[in-house]
């Protein structure tokens, strides 16, 4: 079962991950396995009743008691099967909820330095789609493993009491199956991983192009992109069919052996009853025994067939685990927030950089030897051309960029982690979250009173446009600020800072995407909001520079 692109260690590591996640659904999973095994015992009961009915008939006795026995077993078996499915679902549901929550927690622990380096569509898709892909594995595949290991032997033992020849037919065909399936399944797993990557890229590309339709239309490039998408979809189909050609082969082999076992059993039993066997098996078989094993024959392969049908579940889960594991891994050193007593800021702080520099984990240098003092209660502008390290300086304060050289102090205390929860962050393009305007200002903190949200919205100039919206602050705004202009989104971001009364506000080129009018309006609100707060702005806008109390010029690589 080797996947050529995965080393044995990697595979084992993925398996360990899956087992670890599986613990969240351990109880229901075991229950499902138990019910799965019981079903096959109950099925033997049904076969016993059904064969008894036919045999009684031939013997001239009344078949109805046997029919009732058969139906009774069938009924209990149906109930067991329902319960098994149910338990499997619960096992998968628990694992999915657990993994999704852990991945989200891990992402927020690792911070923007991690997420900014990856395509955010792909990362979000891992949280949603990859987790969803775990369902089959934990709901079906894993609970089936014990069933496959036990149930065939139960049926084999039952068959042995009836006819050793038929039991041998079962036994001889059975061990070949896992072998064939392993060969076929291994290559299917390899191809499936490939397919998952293609699917993710495909989804990412579709997402991006759909979001950019205006741009595509402006350049009349939609037909061309359509061709590109068509080629990608075609590529996906071809790859997937390659996977399936192999995956289906394993079920075809099973199908073949199951059909062969039925045929061989029927022929052996039939000829034996006719007394026409070309050899002497040393046993005589009755009609009841013959029918009994005939009904059992297809069922003997059922656990393996179910496992084969669920085989792609495992490949899917491994592929999903591969895209999830990077999100769940321990934080890299450059993003690590050292567990130290966090700095608490209760009044406008003084911020000092002393020859502070930043080098990311991948070797990129973000900033070199910056020294500055931002006076408390003042607006300090970091001035310089784009790409010079202004944003990095702000990120270092939050712990979003590593503090590799020198030191930073806040009110004299050295910064060890980041100022998480202590400073307001206003980005170039603030994210407008999926929810109401009010929720966007309070950032979903239900404890902030409505009056304070309103006051913050007024002070930040949000009410200038919110008042004319149909539902005011209760208006729903969504992904990427549909419905909000850049200037409006900036004012919402400013209102956030005011609603929680942050004493330190960090702004990363806040007006880079605003026109002069919107910039002026934003700066006016900012000036008012800055009272009693320390404000640090990275910018190259003269208008922003004009409102700053102090300007720090960054030059060259520092």
């Amino acid at each position: 079962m080797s996947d050529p692109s995965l080393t044995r260690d990697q595979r084992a590591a993925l398996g360990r991950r899956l087992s670890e996640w599986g613990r969240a659904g351990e109880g229901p999973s075991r229950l499902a396995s138990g019910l799965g095994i019981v079903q096959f015992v109950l099925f033997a009961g049904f076969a016993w009743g059904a064969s008894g009915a036919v045999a009684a008939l031939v013997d001239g006795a009344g078949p109805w008691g046997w029919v009732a026995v058969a139906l009774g077993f069938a009924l209990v078996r149906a109930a067991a099967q329902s319960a098994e499915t149910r338990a499997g679902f619960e096992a998968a549901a628990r694992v999915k909820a657990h993994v999704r929550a852990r991945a989200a927690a891990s992402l927020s622990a690792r911070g923007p330095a991690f997420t900014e380096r990856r395509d955010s569509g792909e990362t979000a898709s891992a949280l949603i789609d990859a987790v969803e892909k775990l369902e089959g594995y934990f709901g079906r595949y894993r609970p089936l493993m014990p069933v496959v290991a036990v149930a065939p032997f139960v049926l084999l033992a039952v068959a042995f009491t009836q006819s050793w020849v038929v039991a041998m037919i079962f036994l001889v065909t059975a061990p070949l199956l896992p072998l064939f399936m392993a060969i076929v399944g291994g290559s299917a797993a390899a191809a499936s991983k490939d397919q998952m990557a293609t699917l993710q890229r495909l989804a990412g590309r579709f997402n991006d192009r759909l979001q950019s339709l205006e741009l595509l239309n402006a350049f009349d490039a939609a037909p061309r992109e359509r061709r590109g998408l068509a080629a990608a979809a075609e590529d996906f189909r071809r790859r997937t069919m390659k996977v399936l050609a192999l995956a289906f082969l394993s079920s075809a082999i099973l199908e073949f052996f199951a059909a062969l076992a039925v045929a061989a059993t029927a022929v052996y039993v039939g000829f034996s009853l006719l007394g026409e066997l070309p050899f002497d098996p040393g046993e005589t078989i009755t009609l009841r025994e013959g029918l009994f094993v005939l009904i059992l024959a297809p069922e003997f392969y059922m656990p393996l067939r179910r496992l084969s049908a669920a085989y792609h579940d495992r490949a899917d889960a491994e592929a999903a685990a591969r895209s999830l594991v990077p999100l769940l891994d321990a934080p890299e050193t450059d993003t690590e927030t050292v567990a130290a007593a966090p700095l608490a800021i209760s009044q406008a702080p003084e911020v000092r950089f002393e020859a502070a520099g930043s080098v990311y984990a991948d070797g990129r240098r973000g900033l070199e030897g910056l020294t500055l003092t931002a006076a408390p209660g003042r607006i300090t502008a970091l001035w310089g051309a784009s790409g010079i390290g202004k944003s990095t300086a702000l990120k270092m304060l939050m712990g979003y960029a590593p503090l590799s050289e020198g030191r930073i102090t806040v009110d004299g205390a050295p910064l060890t982690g980041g100022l998480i929860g202590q400073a307001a962050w206003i980005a170039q393009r603030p994210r407008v979250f999926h929810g109401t305007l009010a929720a966007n200002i309070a950032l979903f903190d239900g404890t902030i009173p409505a009056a304070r949200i309103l006051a913050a919205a007024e002070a930040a100039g949000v009410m200038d446009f919110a008042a004319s919206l149909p539902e005011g602050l209760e208006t729903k705004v969504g992904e990427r600020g549909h419905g909000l202009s850049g200037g409006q989104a900036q004012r919402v971001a400013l209102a956030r800072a005011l609603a929680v009364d942050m004493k330190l506000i960090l702004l990363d080129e806040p007006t880079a995407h605003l026109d002069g009018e919107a910039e002026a309006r934003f700066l006016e609100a900012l000036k008012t909001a800055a009272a009693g707060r320390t404000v640090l702005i990275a910018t190259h806008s003269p208008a922003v520079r004009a409102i700053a109390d102090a300007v720090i010029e960054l030059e060259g690589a520092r």
Partner: protein
Amino acid sequence: MKDLRFFLALARPDRWWLRLGAVLAAITLLAGIGLLSLSGWFITAAAIAGLAGAGRSFNYLFASGGVRAFALTRTAGRYAERMATHEATFRILARLRLWVFDAAAPLAPAKLGAMRGGDLLSRVTQDVDALDSLYLRLVTPVFAAVCGALFAIAILAFTAPLAIPGVIGVFLLASLVLPLIAARAGARPGAAIAEASSDARAEAGDLVAGLAELKAYGADARVAARLAAASDRWIAGQRSLSRLALINGGVLAFSGPAAFAAGFSLALAGGASAPVAALAGFIGFALFEAAAPLVQAAELYGRTTASARRLKALAEIVPAVTAPDGPAPLPGRWDVTVRDVRFAYPGKDGPALDGLSLDLPEGGRLALVGASGSGKSTLIRLLMRFYAADEGLIEIGGSDIACHAPADTRARFALVDQRAELLSATVADNLRLARAEATEAELWAALELAGAKAFVQALPEGLDTWIGEQGGLVSGGQARRIALARAFVKDAPILLLDEPTEGLDEATEAAFLDALDVWLDADPRRSVLIVTHRAKLLERARQAVVIEDGRAVETGAPGTLAGQNGVFARLFPAFTG
């Protein structure tokens, strides 16, 4: 059902794959029925013959040959069926994706603004995925089940006619009545699942893309909790669906044996011999292989119809601008004339443009100034034919743009809008968006003009560097310069620049303006329309139009306007020309 039929029609080009798959599915099912029922009959008949000592005269060649033939047919049939149905499904899925793209493309941007980005994505990936069950799990199983039932009736009609109502009755109950009940009950959780998964997707997007802001406020845990809540709602919806599956599955598991009993008993009651009664029982039992997929199809029905309905709604939106029938060719000249244009955004109260008139002749350099919201960007959207004017006339070279295909009109303009949006693709791909056949030398020339050459050269893989979503790897100013370069690559006669130097430092801005001059001077017919609030850009304009409340209130050379005591002078107090 109407919505589903629409998507079934979409599959017409691939109908032969679908038909092949359905026929193969039916063959596989028939072989299964044949295998089990013939075996049952054979054993029972053999037992009777054996008891009677007539073993030698029993014709076993037919039976044993038939059993082996059925076994092989079944194996091969199943494999071929799966390949054919999946081939059909993936072909149709690709078609469906492109259909969605085609449906959405003409709507951008006028009619897509109201929809969340997440929704649109959810539509394509989730709904398209949901619809795969339409073909694979609905069409094929129904056809196979009908064939199987007819086959069973045919055999029973010759052997044990009285067993027909028993076998078919139980089969119909389990495969038709129950699935329909399940379908009805599944519609609600189906819709809830679609809703909850959209929510979860939006929350996940918020958490990932807004992490810097969330984390600063310590709000990341709250959004993570919202994600968990949406995920729980999603799983709860799936649980409701799975409960239906339980009921269905349980009944189904019982129905096979019940059909065995019904077929067997009724055949006996009809006076059939023991082998024939066994045959009837096994037919009923084997036929149930066809019932399970039907039940699954019904379980998915709710989800599928909800997806089909939402996808179809997309196609029913009328684009804001459509190409006229028999569009006229564009004239050779490209003077732009705007006369008394009025336009209001749908759903907005006031007009965005209220009788705007202006001229941009060939070789013109026109600056459009005014407070934000005065209508400057709206004019660009009308020129680009993203929207159509409500009243008034826009002409290119003396010909009404409404008479031309929107694509032809757009070909005359190269637009750099405020957002300077980049595709998630390589730098080269982004530039070639403007002109697919542009050579590498042309790309570098355009980058140089836009002041982006040095920075692109410094990228790890130069032109082939992947610049992420919204230009994630490049800064705002760099993204703008690439967007400018893209406009140069397009080589259209009229440049439309909406705040082109926003986010650039002064030195870069000056360099850009020099480059713009070079580009414009290269062909005296080239013209430019610049929307700006920056005085620096006005220095290079020959004409300026001041817009206020959707109307041109002042027109003239910037130097002249600065001398008058009007709106221009108020907007640019320091401007001297």
